[in-house]
């Protein structure tokens, strides 16, 4: 039973309002073990004061993302064997967000920007109207579908250097949502969306480095969505000038 006696060298960020540092733990290795299991093991067996956040444990809620050996990841769906380096795992709170305590971040700024990017449906009909017939293969719908499976886990936001260097930048997830809405035939707020994303901190703050697409666990490509918004805002600008 060597698998139960082997231990992992785990280094976990601990912090409160006055500062922080990494703390080392030896965690028993198991055959089926995720990073979230490692964190939970520490809290349940070694240090009951460790703070972290999770909810669904299957990659649907986007609550448990953390920096694992320097990269933002869903801890619930990251198998230890996939990321272990030597025998070491370093776990830190998600980058680009304020830390509440230890591994738990405050995600409000991320969601505030989601709304600021007009990432909210603008209805043009009511519950008394029939459901709209929409061709699922239309260009617009296909474009919207490409970006729709975002679970707002903030991983792209943590991976983005433009967010790090510009605190006003709305970030990849919010802009990706704006792009899906812009392509949504039912949305009645196209101009509102373009105004929001062309303002300061909007799509033109993206430097097209592509970290978002590389990091997204759902294999979405926010950078491509942002490129779409850049094209549309430019188009709208020239059309208006003509008028």
């Amino acid at each position, binding site marked *: 039973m060597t698998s139960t006696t082997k231990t992992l060298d785990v280094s976990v960020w601990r912090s409160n309002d006055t500062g922080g540092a990494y703390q080392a733990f030896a965690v028993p290795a198991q055959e089926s073990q*995720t990073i979230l299991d490692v964190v939970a093991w520490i809290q349940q067996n070694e240090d009951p004061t460790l703070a972290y956040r999770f909810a669904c444990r299957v*990659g649907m809620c986007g609550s448990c993302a953390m920096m694992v050996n320097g990269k933002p990841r869903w801890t619930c769906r990251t198998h230890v064997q996939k990321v272990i380096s030597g025998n070491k795992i370093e776990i830190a709170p998600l980058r680009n967000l304020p830390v509440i305590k230890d591994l738990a971040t405050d995600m409000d700024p991320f969601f505030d920007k989601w709304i600021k990017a007009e990432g909210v449906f603008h209805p043009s009909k009511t519950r008394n109207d029939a459901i709209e017939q929409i061709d699922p293969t239309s260009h617009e719908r296909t474009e919207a579908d490409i970006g729709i499976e975002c679970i707002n886990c903030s991983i792209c936001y943590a991976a983005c250097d433009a967010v790090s260097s510009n605190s006003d930048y709305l970030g990849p997830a919010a802009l990706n949502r704006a792009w899906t809405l812009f392509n949504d035939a039912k949305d009645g707020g196209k101009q509102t969306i373009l105004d929001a994303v062309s303002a300061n901190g909007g799509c033109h703050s993206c430097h097209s480095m592509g970290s978002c697409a590389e990091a997204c666990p759902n294999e979405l490509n926010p950078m491509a969505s942002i490129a779409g918004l850049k094209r549309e805002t430019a188009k709208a600008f020239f059309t208006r000038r003509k008028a």
Partner: protein
Amino acid sequence: MVAEAKDTGGRRGWRVGAYLRHVLFTGDMIMKIERHDTDILILGTGGAGLFAALHAQQSAPDAKITIAVKGLLGKCGCTRMVQGGYNVALGTGDTVERHFMDTIKGGKWLPDQDMAWKLCEQAVVRVRELENEVGCFFDRNADGSLHHKAFAGQTADRTVHKGDLTGIEIINRLMEQVLSRPVERLQEHRAIGLIPTKDGAALSGVLFIDMRTGDFRFVRAKAVLMATGGGPTMYKYHTPSGDKTMDGLAMALRAGLPLRDMEMVQFHPTGLLAGDHTKMTGTVLEEGLRGAGGQLLNGADNRFMFDYDAKGERATRDVVSRGIFAEMRKNNASPNGGVYISMAHLGPENVAKKFKGMVKRCADSGFDLAGGKVEVVPTAHYFMGGVVVDAETRTAMEGLYVAGEDAGGAHGSNRLGGNGVANSTVYGGVAGDVMGKDIAGISALRDPDEAVLEAEIARALVPFAQMPAHIHPLRKELMDAMWEDVGVMRTATGMQRGLKRVQEIGAELMGLGVDGTTRAFNLTWHDWLNMRSLCDVSTVITEAALARENSRGAHFREDFPEEGALETSYFTVAKQAGDGLDVTREPVQFTIVKPGETILPDSEPETLVAEE
């Protein structure tokens, strides 16, 4: 600071002793409560809570609305986890009447018929609202109309969906709507007590722990919706994650409210089995795998479901769960104590294409679903029982409304796949409408019974007065007890033993302490409180299950395997009585249709679903 976190046992003991004296003799912590007022308070941000917030704002535009949640807004509820979809009678030839009859029959004649009717009728409005006002986009047919799929136990293609991630689409869109409105948010606020007025006639407000600071907060409101959701995680295997602990029902019980159908726990037959140490264990491998031809194999690699039912793996959830459980009891189990699901004979490439999400999830966790065998086990999935409510979400306590999985009645003894999200979104919206209307007649907030407030705080502080210990081993004991003695198959002898075990575990919990060095984001404190809720609700489940001496839907008694006469169907009602429980049987009122009858016209066919 970090060095201090690693304390010696001796110093910690001293600290707890000093702390205990501090609490007892100065009463300092008991005094420290933030007080806060609102008009409408909503507990929970799943489908019910978020819809309630939107509707409350529409029906009472000037009201102050506050929404509180144990985790992050929209992230921690179970609606988000919906894979299959949303039942709504919008498909070709389908009617509200047909949806209703399927719901009543699926619930084995136990549902509250008025609630079931409203669920089916209003689902039509709610899906249009989701599409037209909230911004969901459900899958379409090639002609652009809504796509409906057939779900088990239904006689029409009725289930609207967004691939197999329907819940994420619904909750993401609802959450955007709520976030963009002036709704006050109390995130990471755990409700710990429903506080009545001094005369006990009405609800004054709700006591919370602000989990980020560890402080107490009391919020008064003219109307409160409890929509904290279910989550039967007192079972060894469970699909909702372990932070869902039925706190709402535990609070309702303490507040003296009647709870119905508490014996009705739905098990999903195929939860992933990967060992006790991983949170992956218990998570659902979707129903569609069996529907597509997936085979269940025992430890000796033999198919066994045909030994139990002519439909084999395609039998209903309850039947398959019992088949697997029986096989496990015969010691025909896989290495981790379950059985296998095998898909490889369908062609690994086809499986990987058809079940992309599931295959990827399994691969991330180290399992090959497409080409290999994956261990599975029945897993506690949904809770049909809940607070007794009327079809307007009102309860026996003035000022308290309940919707979603916290409310009992709509599903009876068994919930149809696709009716869970319909229930939470329909009744969340109803609650918002009704609360908005009701508060118009209420001029002032009600004052709380300070004695109850203090008692609830004292109750939450119990662990800080004990020596710190590990909580998790005791939770494992509870999950074993409920799984073994009050699980998929039940007997009086087993349940009596289970009841004793649960009570002993509950008593042991009161002696377990939590390190109170800091209360801010102290997850171990919440582990303790979670256990408290689970022990209380487990006792009710067991006593209600003992009171039902027949087998209906999710409830199976090996000592009473027959379903009993449908005409004299009863539902159980449990209420706190002193230190104990009072469990009674109430006759089901067949207000719309009687057993053996139907409200469908004679000309309607039995089913609209084409045979495979």
